[in-house]
């Protein structure tokens, strides 16, 4: 049942966006989010949408992936829309049926908010589509490395993330095995009330936890055997280096940011 899980949502490829320095991509994504929030009207958002659309074209990510990234946010989008439509009570009243009153500003705000959320998720998904989890971890470690000076455990966190990523498939496989073993002993995992289903998970999670601790112990010894002694004096095989394309990407975002500001000024 877990076989079709994809790790993160990395979509391998060799486009310009894929080849970008992950650090630059990460920073630009954060800036993109700020840009979206600085847009004060729909026209400003249109600039953000244009930015997202062009980036997707450059990355050659199939359109179906965009729809896939939107799936989990449908409830949030729907909730935001409903909340704004029904509860904003300023501007001109358009309809009213009994106590339900809908105003034009409610509709406007709903459209604005929904567009912003969709643009936000679709746009930032591009980062995880075009960057492997390991590159992303690497980028986070390097970007945060100045914080090491004030004693933040940056290397440790990055190492934990790497190990977690490494062990997710292994533990999923193990969960599958344990579930089959328990089913073979007659435990019914898919039937019964909610309470019974939850109780049915106990004999799956306990062995899983026990074996995870054993794995952790063995891994720790194996890491020590390979001379692991923390982040001090550690080098990396892969060196990240910013290329001209990373500079272009920065300029590209700057242009759109200027566009957003212009829209804010022109359409008050």
């Amino acid at each position, binding site marked *: 049942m877990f076989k079709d899980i994809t790790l993160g949502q990395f979509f391998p490829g060799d486009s310009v966006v894929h080849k970008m320095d992950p650090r630059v991509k990460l920073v630009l994504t954060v800036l993109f989010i700020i840009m979206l929030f600085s847009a004060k009207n729909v026209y400003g958002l249109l600039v953000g949408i244009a930015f997202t659309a062009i980036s997707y074209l450059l990355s050659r990510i199939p359109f179906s992936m965009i729809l896939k990234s939107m799936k989990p946010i449908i409830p949030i989008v729907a909730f935001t829309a409903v909340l704004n439509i029904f509860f904003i009570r300023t501007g001109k009243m358009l309809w009213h049926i009994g106590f339900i009153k809908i105003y034009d500003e409610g509709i406007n705000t709903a459209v604005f908010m929904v567009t912003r959320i969709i643009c936000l998720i679709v746009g930032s998904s591009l980062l995880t589509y075009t960057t492997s989890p390991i590159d992303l971890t690497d980028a986070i470690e390097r970007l945060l490395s100045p914080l090491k000076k004030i004693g933040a455990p940056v290397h440790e966190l990055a190492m934990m993330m790497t190990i977690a990523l490494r062990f997710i498939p292994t533990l999923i496989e193990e969960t599958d095995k344990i579930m089959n073993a328990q089913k073979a002993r007659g435990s019914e995992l898919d039937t019964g009330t909610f309470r019974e289903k939850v109780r049915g998970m106990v004999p799956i999670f306990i062995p899983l936890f026990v074996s995870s601790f054993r794995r952790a112990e063995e891994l720790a010894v194996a*890491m020590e055997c390979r001379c692991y002694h923390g982040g001090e004096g550690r080098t990396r095989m892969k060196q990240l280096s910013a290329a001209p394309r990373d500079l272009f990407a920065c300029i590209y975002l700057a242009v759109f940011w200027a566009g957003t500001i212009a829209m804010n000024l022109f359409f008050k």
Partner: protein
Amino acid sequence: MQVFLNADNVRFSYLSDDEPPVKNEVLKGVSLSVRKGEFVAVLGHNGSGKSTLAKCFNAINLPESGTVTVNGMDTADESRLLDIRKSAGMVFQNPDNQIVATIVEEDVAFALENLGVEPAEIRRRVDESLKLVDMYDYRMHAPHKLSGGQKQRVAIAGILAMDPECILLDEPTAMLDPRGRAEVMSTIKMLNKTKGTTIVLITHYMEEAAQADRVVVIDDGEVLLDGTPKEIFSQVETMKNLGLDVPQVTELVWRLRKDGYDLPADIITEDECVNALSKLLGGKGDAL
């Protein structure tokens, strides 16, 4: 030849989790030395202390009394810790629990990154190690998608990258299928022959031990037998009393000898067995 690993009267015990803790002595005065370039197989049933001893040679376990030296360095000397681990690398039973990274080549690079080697040099040594274990074509793969034998070869490459003079392998084939076992064994033998790497192989498979230069039998925390595979396996009854097996062909010949057939007692490989049997049956020696 020069002694590479040396254990002198080593004692080691684990404390149990009970209250008060019960001391469980695992090594009861083990003395063993391994020369440079030797291929030693260590046999012993579960709980005999063989894994504990291997971990002593890697400074994971420090002996309670007695000394362990690796290439002349005392494992108790903390300032030489990395040098010791670099010259005596260790491969474990479960390949899943010793691979750290999500990409094969990143994992092989792990030890070198820890040692602070220059990136270009890491690249060179990672490629070299992967080629040596014949996993270069898989360098960009995710470890969890490899077979058991392939994973174990990646783990060996991760150790090889440190360019150790000695590799300790703690039942590296126990979780593998026959094909994976053959892959790992041929890799180990190749390293021993071509690179002159000292090999200490802990195993449960007698056929694997028969391929070593020397076999050491450990029982209840002590070295009981030590000799060439032929010397050890010809003592079929002693081995059986220890709860250990001998290679299938040795057992076959032993039983035939007991029934009065005239066969040499020191047969440990299939080829030897075939030759001896066909000679006995009046054939030409290699008739099969």
